[in-house]
């Protein structure tokens, strides 16, 4: 299984990696530092097909919202669940409902994140 995490925060990427490994060490994590880099990675090879995409909303260069719309327009990723993974949870709820598959608020502990991952994956 391949998970693709798009998040500009290195700490959050590390925490996510740790939680994912804790949950299931066999899962591969691919990360991108922002939306631009994520689209580059997705477009670099047809072979890149993650099982889950985790997308942060508050990022530089390209907003998570724009990145979400662009990813959704890629035919190859049509059936891939995109999960919003962010601290903001007000204005983006609608967006999550119509474009994203789920919304995950970044939790305060590793146990909580592991629990969330076990629920969605």
């Amino acid at each position, binding site marked *: 299984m391949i998970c693709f995490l798009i998040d500009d*925060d290195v*700490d*959050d990427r590390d*925490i996510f990696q*740790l939680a994912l490994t804790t949950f299931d060490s066999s899962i591969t994590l691919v990360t991108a530092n922002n939306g631009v880099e994520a689209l580059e990675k997705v477009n670099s090879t047809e072979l890149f097909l993650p099982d889950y995409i985790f997308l942060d909303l508050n990022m530089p260069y390209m907003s998570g919202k724009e990145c979400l719309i662009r990813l959704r327009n890629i035919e190859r990723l049509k059936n891939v669940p995109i999960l919003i993974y962010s*601290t*903001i949870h*007000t204005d983006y709820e609608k967006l999550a409902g119509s474009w994203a598959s789920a919304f995950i608020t*970044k*939790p*305060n*502990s*590793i*146990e909580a*994140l592991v629990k969330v991952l076990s629920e969605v994956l």
Partner: protein
Amino acid sequence: MTTSEQLISTQRELTLEKEEKEKLFIELGLANKELAFQKEEKGKRAAELGIANIELVFQEDEKGKRAAELGIANKELVFQDDEKGKRAAELGIANKELVFQNEEKEKRAEELIIANKELVFQNEEKEKRAAELIIANKELAFQNEEKEKRVEEKEKRAAELIIANKELAFQNGEKEKRAAELIIANKELAFQNEEKEKRAAELIIANKELAFQNEEKEKRAAELIIANKELLAFTYISSHDLQEPLRKIQTFVSIILDTEKTNLSENGKFNFQRMQLAAGRMQQLIDDLLAFSRIATTELKFEKVALKTIIDEVKTDLKETIQEKHATIEATELCSASIIAFQFRQLMYNLISNALKFSKSGIPSHIIIKSRIVKGNQSNIEKLSADKNYCHITVKDNGIGFEPHFSERIFEVFQKLHGKEVYGGTGIGLAIVKKIVENHNGIIIATSQLNQGATFDIYLPDT
């Protein structure tokens, strides 16, 4: 001098002139009478002179006769002379005597003639003067007539003038009356004008003052709005940005406690736990601050909601705490209210959780929630409009309460009456409650005595 006064003086002059003329006329009459009398006297005296003259002529004749007789007698005597020598001498003497007497008589006759002539002359003079007097009289009479005519004319004119005068005097009187009335009316108007000007001036000053105050208030309001927006934006952004590192601290602590459990000493574990608690507290603070700022910024959508529904939802949310505190929440007498539902839910949540939090230890918490529609004047609260309807909500508990002088302060942000060791919380809960009540254009009053429970009275306009 007014017209009427001039007329009056003219009148007087005319009257005086008339009097003068009347006097003159009387004097002329008297002079006339005098002249007539003198004339009569002269006539009498002329008649007397005529008679005297006739007498003298008669005497002359007699004298002539006697002279003739004397001549005859003389001739007789001369004849008798011879004879009567003596007697002739005597007669001669007598003759001389007679001649003398004759001469004397002639002298006297001459004198009488002269006197007669004198009288005739005087008569003539008198007649002349009488003629002159007659002429002068006629002249005077004429003048008198003229004067009478003129006096008549003047009298006519005077009468006319008197009438005209009276008319004018009447008109004058009327005019004076009207003038007096106008003066009074004018004074009244002037007074009113002055009063109005005074009031206008006062109003202008008051207006300027108000305009100035208004401007100042608008300026301050505008400044406050800007400051408020800035503050809320700052609160929101900072709260949000503060959450990120805090969440990481919490997460990393959890990782350490999770993965390094065996490597840590008991003291080390305890300190990490305290770190986690502190971070948790900070998390709660930030969450409340966010909620507070969100309540101030979100759109206000009012709807008629049964308060029972809201309270039931809150009771469900607080189920665990209610059980833990062995609390009973009595919420039976409840009406519907026009509210912003999600905000009001937060309000009730904060009030009820506060009541549960500040319960007396060892005594089961008892919370009574009531609501009913009341008129403003039933409430004894000045801020409420007397004839308006309000939804009056009461939340009463049997908790520790607070000292009455804190009844205002408890609604301020970060105001906490107790140390956090005893009662947790951020001190924002009641500030949020107040903010929500204000969003509903209502008022909230807290009343309590220490250790005697607290009561929160909320009045929301009933629309």
